[in-house]
Every structure is written in C-alpha cells, then in structure tokens.
C-alpha cells in the first residue's frame, strides 16, 4: 500500500530515475557479463579458477613460504625446507652479476651501470632537465664505458674472458642495440635505393643473415673467422660475438625499417624533391622520422629478441648467466638445483624485456599524432 502512495506523489513523467536492478549494476553486473555470460564462459571461468588453484598456492609455497635463503649446501637447504633453495643464488650472487671480473675492480662495473642509466634517461624521457647536455653525455658514454670495463687511461686492463654474468648480457645487449640501429637503417635505405649494385649487396646481406640461425653465425665467428683473417691475427672472442650479434639484428631491423619506409606515401618524397631537398635531407628530415615512428614496435621487438639472444653465447663458451649456472651446477655441493637458477635468470630477463615492451607502447602513444590511416 505504501508504495502506491509514494508513486502518487509524482506527476506523470516526473518520477526520478530508479537505480538499475541489483543484478544489473556494480560488481554483480560485471561478474555476470565478464565471467558467466554463457555456458561456455561458465565452463571457461571454472576451468581457469581451478587452474589458478592448482598452480598458484603450490608455486607460492615453493618460491616463498617453504624456500630457504640461507644455507651452505644443497643438503642443508633440503633439511631446512621443502621449497626452492634460493641459497645457491644468494651464495653465488656476485658471480652471477660480475662473472670472473676481478673483485677489486668491480666498482668500475657498478659505475658503468649507473652511468648507463644516466645516459639512458635523456634519451628515453624528453622532459629530462638539461636534456641537450644529457644527450651529449649519452653520445660519449660508449667511450667512457669502454675504458671503464676494459681498462686503459690509468685503469688496470681487464681481459674480456673475465667478463661474465649479467654484466656480460648487458654489455652484449647494449652494444648490439646501439650499433645495430644505425646499421639497420643504412641497410634499409640501401635496399630501397635506386642504385642497382648497392641494392643487390644489401639484399644479399640481409637475406643471408636472416636465412640462418644466430647459433650458426656464432659458430662461424668462433671457428671460421681465423681462416678469413691474415695469419697470426688475434681477435678477441667477445669482440667477434659483438660484431656478429650486431650484424644479425641489423638485418632484422633493416627489414622492419623497410616496412616503415614502404608505408610512407610517395608524395612525401616528391614534395621534398620539389622543395629542392637533397637525398639525405629528404631522408633525414621527411621520410625517416615518419618511417621510424611506424616501425617502433618492430624495432623494439628486434631489440628484445637481440637481448634474449645474448644467452646463445653460452654455446660458444662465453660465461653469461646460463654459462655460469652450468659451472655452479657442476659443483657437487649444489647439484640438481637447476630449476632455482633458471627461474632466477628468467626473472631477470622477464623484467628487462617486459620493461622494454612497455616503453615501446608508451612511446607509440606519445608519438601518436592522430594521422593513423
């Protein structure tokens, strides 16, 4: 009865809107629409929940609750807890980071790493204060890093055979990324050039590199390069690897950039020519800025691929984290703990690669000018 009296208070058409039914708003609506909208969806949801239940608790248990961080050997670990034995990572942490870099010189690696961050900031964020000055620093950073890591200018010389662990990964990764981008752009321009011979050379190079796995190229670097150089030439193994990794990813970047170049309408070049711009001005001011913008996702993917591929150097005997883990696992005190070590290394790669891919998405959004066709 009371409801009727309430309704009668309003003139027709002036009743304020009522809230939607309970099942059609808030969390319940969301759950109904996103988890239980159809029989198939109900099955999928229940399956996912079961999967989560089957995976997450044992994983947390293994990784955190029952894991052991402080132990002197594998057996001690297993006595203390049934979970992961992170003690092996704790005990060998320095080795995983620096490889066999001399202990008293390790401050140089840390300094080089900090300076790397300082050099990256002005490149990655255009709102950095004093950005121009910062970019100059970024430009000279490779030289500084070279002297810091390998020695010279009063610093003790360190052989590259002593490089290892994550610092080796970073050295190869950063050098490869920095060197392969300009080379890749030049190769892409060569492939699109009107000059026949130049074009043929670039096409052959790109197709050859892209046609074979990186491992075989690294094998070539480690076994064949001695044949190709004048007798008696000594060539640092790390340097060979750096060259091969750079050439490898340059070929892939060339293809990505070529895709970007092809997407730019011919009218842009024609307009630039009509304005009297030379080839290099046309490319540098008109075509490349647009082409590179389109190619960002592909370029960053190539960088991520290169970064992950740095692990392959273990196969020709360099001591990257995986190479070190083989050595650590050979120690009878720690045998059989491969899963812990591999998960630890995987975490490192996941964090760096995921950060790179996130940055690429951010950059894409920032450069989006709304001209998307």
């Amino acid at each position, binding site marked *: 009865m009371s409801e009727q009296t309430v309704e009668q208070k309003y003139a027709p058409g002036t009743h304020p809107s009522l809230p939607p039914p309970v099942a059609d708003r808030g969390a319940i609506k969301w759950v109904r629409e996103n988890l239980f909208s159809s029989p198939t969806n109900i099955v999928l949801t229940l399956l996912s929940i079961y999967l989560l239940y089957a995976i997450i608790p044992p994983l947390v248990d293994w990784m955190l609750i029952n894991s052991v961080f402080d132990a002197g050997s594998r057996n001690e670990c297993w006595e203390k807890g049934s979970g992961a034995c992170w003690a092996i990572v704790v005990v060998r942490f320095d080795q995983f980071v620096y490889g066999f870099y001399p202990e008293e010189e390790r401050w140089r690696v840390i300094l080089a790493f900090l300076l790397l961050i300082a050099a990256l900031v002005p490149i990655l964020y255009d709102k950095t204060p004093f950005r121009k000055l910062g970019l100059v620093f970024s430009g000279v950073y490779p030289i500084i890093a070279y002297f810091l890591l390998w020695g010279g200018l009063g610093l003790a010389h360190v052989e590259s055979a002593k490089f290892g662990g994550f610092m080796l990964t970073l050295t190869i990764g950063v050098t490869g990324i920095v060197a392969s981008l300009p080379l890749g752009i030049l190769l892409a321009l060569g492939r699109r050039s009107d000059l026949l011979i130049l074009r043929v050379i670039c096409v052959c190079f790109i197709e050859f590199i892209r046609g074979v796995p990186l491992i*075989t190229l690294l094998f070539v670097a480690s076994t064949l390069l001695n044949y190709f150089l004048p007798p008696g030439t000594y060539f640092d193994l790390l340097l060979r690897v750096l060259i091969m990794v750079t050439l490898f990813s340059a070929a892939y970047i060339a293809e990505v950039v070529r895709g970007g170049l092809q997407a730019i309408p011919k009218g842009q070049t024609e307009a630039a020519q009509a304005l009297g711009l030379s080839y290099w001005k046309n490319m540098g001011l008109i075509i490349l800025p647009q082409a590179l913008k389109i190619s960002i996702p592909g370029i960053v993917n190539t960088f991520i691929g290169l970064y992950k591929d740095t692990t392959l150097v273990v196969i020709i005997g360099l001591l990257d984290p995986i190479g070190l883990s083989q050595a650590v696992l050979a120690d009878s005190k720690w045998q059989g703990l491969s899963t812990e070590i*591999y998960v630890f290394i995987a975490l490192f790669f996941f964090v760096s690669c995921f950060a790179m891919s996130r940055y690429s998405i951010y950059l894409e959004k920032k450069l989006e000018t709304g001209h998307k066709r």
Partner: protein
Amino acid sequence: MAAVDYQQQPGVKLSELWVDKRSRGVIIQIIALILLLLFIGFIVNNTINNLKLLGVETGYGFLNEPSNYDINQRPIEYSSRSSHGRAALVGILNTAIVAGAGIVLATILGFVAGVLRLSGNWLISRLVYVWVELTRNVPLLLQILLWHGIIVHSLPRPQEALSPADGFFLSNRGFSVPSPQFEPGFWAVVIALGVAVAGAIWFAGYAKRVQEQTGKHYPVFTINLALVVGLPLIVFMAMGVPLTLDWPELRGFNFRGGVTVRPEFMALWLALSFYTAAFISENVRAGIQAVSHGQTEASYALGLRPNWTMRLVILPQALRVIIPPLISQYLNLTKNSSLAIAVGYMDIVATIGGISLNQTGRALECMSIVLGLYLAFSLFISTVMNWYNKRVALVER
C-alpha cells in the same frame, strides 16, 4: 630574347660528374663494387694462405669416411661406422622431426590462445595474457633448459614411472609409448585413405558448384569427415586388422620395446612449441582484430549465425593478415630448433656442425653445409610466401 645555350661547353668537367645525379650514382656503385671485390679478394686470399699454412686438406670427400660417433636419436639406420654424410642426414631428419612436431603443436596452442585472449571472459583473457607475456619475455634457451631440468630432475625413475594409460610410461628417461608394427596388408588402408581424401576434395568442389548454381547446401564437413575417417577404417577392418602394437616393458633400469620419446626431444619440442605459440597467439589476435567490426555487423544483418559469420566472413579476411607472420614464425621455429645443441638433441648443427666438425677439423666445409641448408630452406619458404602474398593481396586501384 636569346635562348640560353646549354651546350656551350663541349668538355665535361670532372666536378660536374659528382653534381649530376645519374653520374654520381654510377660513381658510387663502381666504388661500392670495387670495395666489395677487394673485401672478397682479401678474405679468399687469407683463407687460401691459412689453409696452406695449416696444411689442411680441403674438399667434401670426408663425408664418405666413417664418422666414429654415435647418435642416440636416429630415425634411420645409423651406427658409428656410418659415414659423416649419413650423420648429416640423420641430423637433417632430426631437425625436420622436431620442427614439424613443433609447428603442429605451436599452431594449435597459438590459435587457441589467440582466440581465448579475445574471449569475453575476463579471467581467461587475463590468464592467457600473463602466459603470453611470461613466455615471450624469457629467452628460449632458458626455457629449453628449464623443461629439460624439470623432465630429468622432477619426473620419477623408470621403476616408478607415471602411467597415464596402459602401455604409456612417463619417466625421467622419456615418454614410452606402444609403437605400431605394420603388417603387409596395411598398404590397402593407406590406399583407402588416399582415395578418401581425393573423394573428399572432389565432393567439396562439387558441393560448391551445386550451391553456386542452385543454392542447395550440402553438409560438406560432416560428409567429408565420415568419408576420410570411415573408408580407411572399413578397409582396416576388412583386411583383418593388419597392425600390431609393440608394448613397452620395464626391463632392468629402462624400457624395452615400443617407442621412447627422449627427454631432450621432449624439452626441445615443448619449449619451442610454447615459445612460438605465444608469438602466434599475438598474430592471431592482431589478425582477428584487423577485420573491422562492421563486417560482423553486416553479416549479422544478412542473417548469418555467429559461427557462420566467423567461418565465412571473419576468418577468411583474418587469415590474409595472419598467414604471412604465421609462416615467418614457422621459419623462426625451424631456425630456433638449432638450440637443440644445448640439451644434446642431435640436429643438423649438433651432428655435422658440431661433432663432425670437431673430429675432422673441416670447419669450412661443415659450416658451409649447415649454412647452405638453412639458407636454402629459408629462401624456399620466402619465395612461397611472396607468391602467396601476391595471390591473396587486396587488389586496389
């Protein structure tokens, strides 16, 4: 007003050659060619000198010499007395097996994951997203080693093998399954299968013609499925079941009989498949999203049911976007199978490019074989791809 005479200077100054675009192009190309030839000459000259200095014989004759090493996973007859050439062949077959098996599993997983990623179900789409990101951002080599470690260290010994079904044993020595032993009558079944496939293709074409002319629609898929499965099955029964199974049995410390899929193969296969599937799922997602929503709406407006819309309208258009990157993922998978060497699976790089190379010291010859094989395969695939792209490309303007 007198016209300017552009021909007034008969001689061409050298500096003008650089100003003129065409002649400059010619000059640049000549310089590039000379540099390239000098570079090649330098390398060839060095190689000849080095080979002379080392006193190594060259040539591919060693391929006929006995290899003196064993290969544990061999699809064809091979022993340590077989030649290096035979070892290379075993390696090629092993690469082909793991690449083929990987492509099949990666495609299935990738398509399922790609579709689930777009599902309206929030939970499953998030789960797939997490899996894709985890898999894509961890180096493949690490994943192979991780799988290998799990199989070798976490699975039980053969004596306590897990047995998901009768005759199937999962242990740290691999996965043992019954192997089929074909009897002479089996060829009839193979012929029946061939006839059934041919019949199915003809029927599909016939049904399409009929539908185009009269609008009458046959249930092509059901009939063809019955044909392809049913005919060989009937012949199989009629020939008196010409197939026996060789069951694996535990003898001592290992399994005898049947076929055992070794841990190295399993680790490589699973890691390759999951890794590539993560990339394929992103391609599939992008492909489906590339088909504009208007297509779905238009097809609903025409009265097509959702599964018909997917099959007849969305998928054909999505496949045009999906297939080129899909093929390049297949190519990547094949090239990535060279990581086999990390777990000791004897593929082409591990046999001829690894052990044979170390035993004979013929680095130049062995590496040229490996590089040549990969290169030939890649170029073949990319030629097919270019042909396919030209065929399916949208014709514009």
